[in-house]
């Protein structure tokens, strides 16, 4: 037995694809989603009893799309507003978590734990019921409509989570950075703002985006407390179509698809950033 001679390969194996992965929204993603909607629609059609000629489900969905889309945009608006407020407050709360004064640190950490451990829905109820319907500051009267209260209610847990993200990012900076900054005679304020924070921003970005995705998912909670967003509108659409039970599956499936189309690219981008910023070990 002789060793099998190695044949000279007549072709060159393609090198493994290098570089950052692209947004991999393949055709089958869209196809799977469309299938889901169609499947639920046909299932519902089959389940609907009575031969009465009723409008097809896809026609109904198409008819109400502009209204539902306006509701969806309102959801996005709520999420952006809450994220902005929550990030500003959370940044301030995060600073107290890395304070050198123990009482400040303790107060910050109690606040953070409290708002992080409370369910989002309970905090939303909290804001809804306990905030006044208008604020009176001297002669100035600021009305607080329901949606603004919802924004405030949602920004509370965002605040706590942003603070935690910030604390985690600061903790992940090697202590050598602090020591080096100190030995170069930077003041505490300069150490934090010019040396530690710029390194933290990069690490905070992926979890921050993750938080934004979670927040976007939570904006539908506002429908429970009576804000006119996409879920409330969906209920109204269902009522306007005569409360057809077979409409509900495709209707909620349709809304799910929208949220998916909004959140999935964000999730992909987050993974990509995470991979790029990953600490090389």
């Amino acid at each position, binding site marked *: 037995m002789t060793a099998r001679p190695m044949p000279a390969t007549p072709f060159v194996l393609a090198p493994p694809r290098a570089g950052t992965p692209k947004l991999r929204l393949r055709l089958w993603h869209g196809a799977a989603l469309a299938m889901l909607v169609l499947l639920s629609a046909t299932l519902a059609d089959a389940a609907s009893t009575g031969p009465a000629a009723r409008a097809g489900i896809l026609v109904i969905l198409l008819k109400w799309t502009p209204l539902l889309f306006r509701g969806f945009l309102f959801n996005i608006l709520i999420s952006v507003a809450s994220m902005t407020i929550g990030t500003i407050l959370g940044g301030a709360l995060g600073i107290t978590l890395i304070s050198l004064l123990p009482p400040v640190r303790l107060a910050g950490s109690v606040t953070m734990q409290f708002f992080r451990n409370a*369910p989002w*829905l*309970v905090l939303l109820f*909290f804001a809804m019921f*306990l905030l006044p319907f208008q604020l009176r500051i001297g002669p100035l009267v600021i009305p607080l409509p329901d949606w603004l209260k919802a924004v405030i209610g949602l920004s509370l847990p965002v605040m706590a989570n942003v603070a935690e993200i910030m604390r985690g990012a600061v903790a992940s900076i090697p202590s050598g950075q602090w020591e080096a900054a100190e030995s170069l005679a930077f003041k505490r304020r300069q150490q934090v703002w010019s040396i530690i924070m710029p390194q933290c921003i990069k690490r905070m970005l992926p979890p921050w985006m993750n938080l934004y*995705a979670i927040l976007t998912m939570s904006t539908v909670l506002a429908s429970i407390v009576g804000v006119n967003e996409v879920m409330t509108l969906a209920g109204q659409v269902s009522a306007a179509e005569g409360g057809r039970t077979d409409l509900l599956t495709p209707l*909620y499936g349709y809304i*799910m698809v929208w949220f998916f189309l909004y959140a999935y690219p964000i*999730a992909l981008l987050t993974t990509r950033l995470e991979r790029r910023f990953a600490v090389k070990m």
Partner: protein
Amino acid sequence: MQTIAAWFHALYETTGINLTIIYDAFDRARFINGFLVTIELSVICIFFSIVIGIVGAWLQGSQLVWTRRIVQAYIQLFRNTPPLVQMYFFYFGLSNLLPRLHAAGGDQPLLSGFAWACISLSFFAGAFNVEIFRSGIEAIPHSTLEAAEALGYTRLSAYRHIILPLAVRVCLPALNNNLVNLVKTTTLAYAIAVPELLYVSAQIWSDNVNVPEMMVVLLLVYFALVGLLVLGMHRLEFRLRLPGYSRT
């Protein structure tokens, strides 16, 4: 018991702090019931979401590309859509497509709101758990898997006896986080009228107009529940720690 009730009644009369859940037997029973439903819901969902996570992570390591794709589609679908919409989809949508039971008092849906809440929350948290277990599995050194293969383990038995026990230890902190989130997400069952803690609290505060007091009680109860879970998970983490791997 009687004196405590009397004291809280007096507290209401003197200060206006109305804690009916302590001195009123009916409200107390309602509140305790809601508390038990929340715990039941949490325990069931935690169990099934972990099962989904373990099975899903195993399927994701499959050689078949379509199995992996289906699991991936499930994860992405449930991670990137709002849990409330999922719950409505299940409870209002799918529930209506299922056959109805003919009971004595008229037609009844096949599955109750509680069952649908369990199903939708388990699938929701399960999608996150699959990712968490997968990250734990990927953290296992490849040589460990090769050693198992060399010892003649099949894929399933290697997964059961070698990879999973190691992976669970690696991913416990992340799992901990997700389970805390799951317990907090059980409040969503309020939307489909499952009589859990938030739902009964809403009933109580609309009967007695004591929103601020109930709100504080509610927050404290959830704080305690989550604290208990975190404590338990930390003890588990400590008991399962690997020598040479634990951070402290």
